[in-house]
């Protein structure tokens, strides 16, 4: 394997093993350089207190040039958090996963961003267009053209 993604992901993995993940984030599996799973939990006072969610990262061979496809896992009894930017199929509407992705970001920094996105949420509610989106959503959230309407939540 000589692709860009495998070398960089190997480095990220080594860093995670050496330094550990930030509080509330745990590496579940990273058996290959295509799919990684993390659990994510919001620490401290929040509407998601003591709820654990599973995040899935899918990488393309030219990661980090191309953004990873990040979703919440919604199979086997796992659920996506009820959040205005998280659809019930696990898709996440966050600009850093789309047009504001930059190779300077990493798997851990994405986790932290999503953790703080949950932490700053005041009220658990689904996205307004949840039903419509879930009905027609593609398998890969990167194929969706999200409109990033609001940065406050």
């Amino acid at each position, binding site marked *: 394997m*000589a*692709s*860009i993604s495998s*070398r*960089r992901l190997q*480095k*990220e993995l080594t860093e995670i093993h050496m330094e550990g993940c930030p509080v509330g984030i745990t590496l579940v599996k990273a058996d290959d350089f295509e799919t990684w799973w993390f659990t994510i939990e919001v620490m401290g006072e929040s509407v998601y207190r003591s709820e654990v969610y599973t995040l899935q990262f899918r990488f*393309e*061979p*030219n990661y*980090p*040039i*191309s*953004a990873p*496809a990040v979703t919440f896992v919604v199979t086997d009894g796992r659920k996506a958090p009820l959040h205005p930017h998280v659809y019930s199929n696990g898709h996440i509407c966050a600009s850093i*996963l*789309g*047009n*504001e992705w*930059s*190779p*300077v*970001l990493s798997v851990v920094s994405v986790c932290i961003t999503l953790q703080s996105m949950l932490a700053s949420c005041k009220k658990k509610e689904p996205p307004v267009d949840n039903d419509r989106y879930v009905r027609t959503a593609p398998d*890969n*959230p*990167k*194929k*969706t*053209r*999200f409109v990033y309407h609001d940065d406050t939540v």
Partner: protein
Amino acid sequence: MTNEKGKGRAPTLADLRVKLCYICREEEQGDSPSTKRFVHPCNCTLIAHEACLLEWIRTSEGTGRENTARQCPQCKTPYEVESQNPAVLRFLRAVDRNLGGVDLGFYLVGFGFVVRAVYRAQLNYGAWALRSYIGNEVFDLTLTNDTSSWPLVAKANIVMIPASLILARLGIPQPLGAILATWPAFAFAFPRLDDLRVVDTTNNNTPPLPVTASGWPPSPFFFGFVLLPLCRRFYRYYFLRFSRWVMGMPSPAAGRERNANEQGVRPTLLQRLLDNMERAAGDNNADNNNNNNANADDPNRQVISVDMRRAGRLIGGALLAPAIASTMGKFLLRLSQRFGLLRRFLGVRPGWTGIMPPPQLRRYSARELWRRAAQELVEPAPSSAVSFGVHFGGSGMHAETGHGLNVGKALRFVLGAVWGDVRKLDECDPVWWRNALGFGVFVLARDLVQLAHMWLTQREIATRRVRDRDFSRVDLGELDLIASE
């Protein structure tokens, strides 16, 4: 110590103990021999391989986030990228980009002709296209402006012209060649024999032809069924090879490119170029994956609208083809006034207008035609079997009846009545021939411009350099510098 040194001059990349590319995260010790060029393109501590940075910038192109990619993600300093970007390329790019706007216009034109596809509109378009292609003279001789008098075959064919042009542009097999080849027959199609207008070969009032037919230009049939498909195949093959030679690409991918063309998939210029570059770079695996994920590259990519725009340009362009052919034909005609050889090649003739009256056309009614044909049929052959005649029933019958049924002669008469004017049309100024040639010249010119655009783009990308800066704006305490002395 480093501070003192900082006073003298700002440290640069060369002074860093460890270099870490912020994109691929590869590290390099300051004293180890450098394998890949690092740059410090901004005003903060981030540094990167130039190759990684250029790859990041290149993949962002055409996705709407070029500006994000061309600045530092941390300090937002714009990267300065230098490359060979001559005025010609900037002009071609601007045209290409602005054609996006024109696309809409094209699309509306196409929309008007195709989706509004009222039979009438298609017929009118077809008539205009045919008139542009074969010229006024022949058009008036065969079809005239009165659409109601057209034979059914002509109508059926002409209505198909817009669709044929678009299909032809997509590279889908279509009856265009047949239409181009059979236009002379439109006036003589059977379903409306009452309107049949043929040259009465028995009428000696037919004026002598201004210029005798010389067998050049080739007949429309030969052109439409043989010459055109052959030329097209040769041209495609050799232009592709030429393109690859110009772009310095290996040729094994030729099969793939041809397939893509035949399926009507015409990716944009830049995409095609970048695909080719990736393919040339090797790594088949990554390449395949890239292709599969091409659409997933960026969620903001306006896939549908891009496709629609491309379709607009394509349809509009296809429907403009007759006008282009006509314009190019006129251009060739003007050129031919200076060059005798070209004039002869184009077979330019004075045409019927002017001193010579147009050939006399006579109508046969269907009944008259059959009557005359029957007459020819039973008329005794002048010298038994010498003529083209095929004796009905063979020699046995011949012997029995004394004189055979001269099927050949009758057939010749009918065919002469039906196709007779085709010869007459051959005597007309072959506007269609120079229009077809002119369109060929246009296609060649267009392909050459496109190739030049691709070549310049490739050179522009290949010559890119990100400007390296020193660390004068960075707090030196943050840097791990090699100790001086």
